[in-house]
């Protein structure tokens, strides 16, 4: 809870996992303390610099930096499922491009009648690294940023608090709704509705769930709207926050570094084109 609570309670909040659909891991490392905007800026830097330079090594370097950041913040394990998922896509790309890329000329590997071409494989490597680069830099952001912190940071920049509320509440309320759903299923099963069986049985069992789920969420929404009203949600006052986000020195420093990298990449690219 980097925003408001320090010391002992902070440790307690680490133990109690928040009920949420967000992927945020509250492990208290330097990445969770970093300003959300800094992490967003890193995504921009990683993706933009690599694309501008077009150099495969630049992609690889950023993938490396991102992996190091994830490892150092103890988040790499959480990012593995993302990588595994993307690998299935990457393998398909390798096969298709390696075999059928339209510029394929130079054979690289021959397995009987199947020939992999150098051009296709290189092209696939480029796509693959691009995907990995985006995935990793995005993973840093998603895994180490509490949605509420991001929204708050945005609100301070003039983002509408109403819209901000909608975003943060979704993360809390959807898991609650799923809980209601299972109670409702139980209530209907209790009255002899068969829910276990073939597709038709389950499809038929779905209908009696819809209206209680909808009605429940409508009533809840209405009540919650009242609860928000009586807590001054409509107030015209300028909203205040529990603690100032102290933009740390490291945030400023990193932002400058990122800016230099992007500008550097642009200059390099321009120089490259000019020289040629």
């Amino acid at each position, binding site marked *: 809870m980097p925003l408001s609570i320090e010391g002992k309670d902070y440790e307690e909040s680490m133990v109690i996992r928040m009920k949420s659909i967000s992927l945020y891991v509250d492990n208290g490392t330097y990445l969770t303390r970093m300003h959300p905007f800094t992490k967003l800026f890193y995504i921009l830097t990683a993706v933009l610099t690599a694309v501008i330079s077009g150099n495969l090594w630049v992609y690889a370097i950023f993938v490396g930096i991102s992996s190091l950041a994830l490892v150092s913040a103890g988040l790499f394990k959480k990012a593995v499922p993302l990588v595994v998922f993307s690998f299935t896509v990457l393998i398909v790309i390798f096969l298709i491009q390696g075999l059928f890329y339209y510029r394929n000329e130079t054979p690289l590997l021959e397995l009987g009648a199947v020939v992999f071409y150098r051009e296709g494989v290189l092209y696939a490597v480029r796509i693959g690294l691009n995907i990995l680069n985006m995935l990793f830099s995005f993973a840093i952001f998603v895994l180490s940023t509490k949605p509420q912190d991001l929204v708050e940071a945005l609100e301070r920049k003039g983002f509408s608090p109403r819209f901000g509320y909608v975003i943060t509440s979704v993360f809390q309320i959807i898991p609650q709704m799923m809980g209601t759903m299972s109670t409702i299923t139980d209530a209907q099963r209790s009255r*002899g*509705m*068969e829910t276990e069986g073939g597709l038709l049985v389950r499809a038929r069992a779905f209908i009696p769930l819809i209206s209680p789920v909808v009605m429940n969420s409508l009533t809840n929404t209405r*009540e919650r709207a009242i609860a928000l009203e*009586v*807590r001054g949600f409509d*107030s015209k006052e300028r909203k*205040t926050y529990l603690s100032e986000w102290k933009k740390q020195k490291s945030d400023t420093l990193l932002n400058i570094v990122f800016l230099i990298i992007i500008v550097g990449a642009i200059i390099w690219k321009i120089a490259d084109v000019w020289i040629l």
Partner: protein
Amino acid sequence: MENSGRMDSVAAGNALIEVENLKYRYPHTQSLALKGVSFCVNQGEFIGIAGANKAGKSTLTQALAGLVPQFYKGAYGGRVVVDGREADKTPICEICKSVGLVFQNPFNQLSGAKDSVYEEIAFGLQNMGIAPEEMRRRIDEAMALLDISQYRGKNPFDLSGGQMQRVAIASILVMEPKILVLDEPTSQLDPAGTEEVFKAVLRLAKAGKTILMVEQKIEKLAEYCNRILLMADGAVVDFDTPERIFSRADLEKTGVQPPVYTRLAKAQGWHIDGKPELYPVRLAQMQPFREPLAALVRQLADAAAVEGADTPETERQTVFEIKALTFSYDEGADARRVIDGLNLCLDGRATAIIGQNGAGKTTLVKLLKGLLKPAGGSIYYNGTDISGRTVASLAGEVGYVFQSPDDQIFKSRVLDEVMFGPLNIGMDKAAAKERSLAALRMVGLEDAAEKNPYDLELAERKMVAVASVLSMDTRVIIFDEPTIAQDYAGRETMKRIIRELSGQGRLVIAILHDMDFVAECFTRVIVMAHGSVLADGTPKEVFDREQILEEARIERPYAAAMCNALGIEGYVRLDI
């Protein structure tokens, strides 16, 4: 304060709340929800609002906070002045600085956007633009007052109902309103949660906060309030001291049952010294009647002994046999067992299961119903193991009424909703209809058969849910908290239903937090704690065992608590 707070003595100019001929009609309805309500409240008073369901109590609380008419729209007349401002014209975000509103459902009062208690409480202050240091000061103070400091870093959704409700009160309190309006703040809580909330409210009252509280737990109102606003049918019947209100001869006509002490005193003609028209309403006021009460208890106990409490043969037949039952919601070796090696035999006697939240009551009945499958041990129904059967196949044998009717109602006609179960278990249409109409008659909703369930009040929807299980004609009927949201009349209907079902030789099992209801309706009481049975016996046997009650954190029924407090031996059911 006693007896001095007559309405006429309130000088109407300097009252904190002035309500003058308030009339209100919700949009798309025909009749008025409030029909010319007038009253005044002074600074520092603790006002109780009593009345049957639909009396207009909640509407009135919403009007004080400006939600009626600003949020609900509709037709509005008269004047509500709160802290010098007109409630219908001042924006809600301004009124909320004077009037704090806490309502029934603790869950829906959480903003849903904050993931720690501390930040949740800060939500209103952020909206009001309070400076961070001031916010911290107020939050710390409110958390201390409500005894929730230890949860500050927790996710509010992980708290129990009582804790959540105290967070809700704290969230309102930090905004420092002069008036706190509580609309049945404990109706959805267990006894411990209820006690926590009442204690907190009492502390606030002592600190000088002006409080208006709607409550069905009438003994609590009598205990705490300076004055009671008695409402019926959208109007104020009376506004006076608890003694005067609860001593009214026509009180039950308004759908309010007086406190147990008053009922007893009225029946026995024990009036407050020197005031023949007033009866005691609080436990302390019963002290002078200790001797006659002791005599009465002895006499009733003797009568009960003569009558003999032999259970009829039919009630002795075993229905469920539970052997070494274990269950846990998580898997793995270190999973916490919610049910832990339970052995129990359930026969035909009407059985109440009591205990704190988390004791395993609901888990147990869900296992009986087949909604959950045992992790170890077995459950026999009529001698056969039920672990292999689907829930739907057991539906014709075991009925289960869920706590919230809104978790099941999905048809647009009450009769169709009630017929859903019988048709599912293979009854033909004519029989299902006949059974359903009989069930609706039993719950007192025969006139509502053609209505849309969602046009009914919550208490009535609950009765629809009850009917929809009764219509299935099952041998076993399980109720989960049947008295929640029911007023006096609803409770009486529930009592009648339970007695009738039991009389037909069906096994009634109910999870209950309402101990008076338990004492009045059930012949067998099972006390659960930490997933096992702590005590099992007749209400008398169970409510006599102080140690057990303490361990399970259960309060005695008021009548029993009264005898105990006055040092009278033994427990007796006072059917008054």
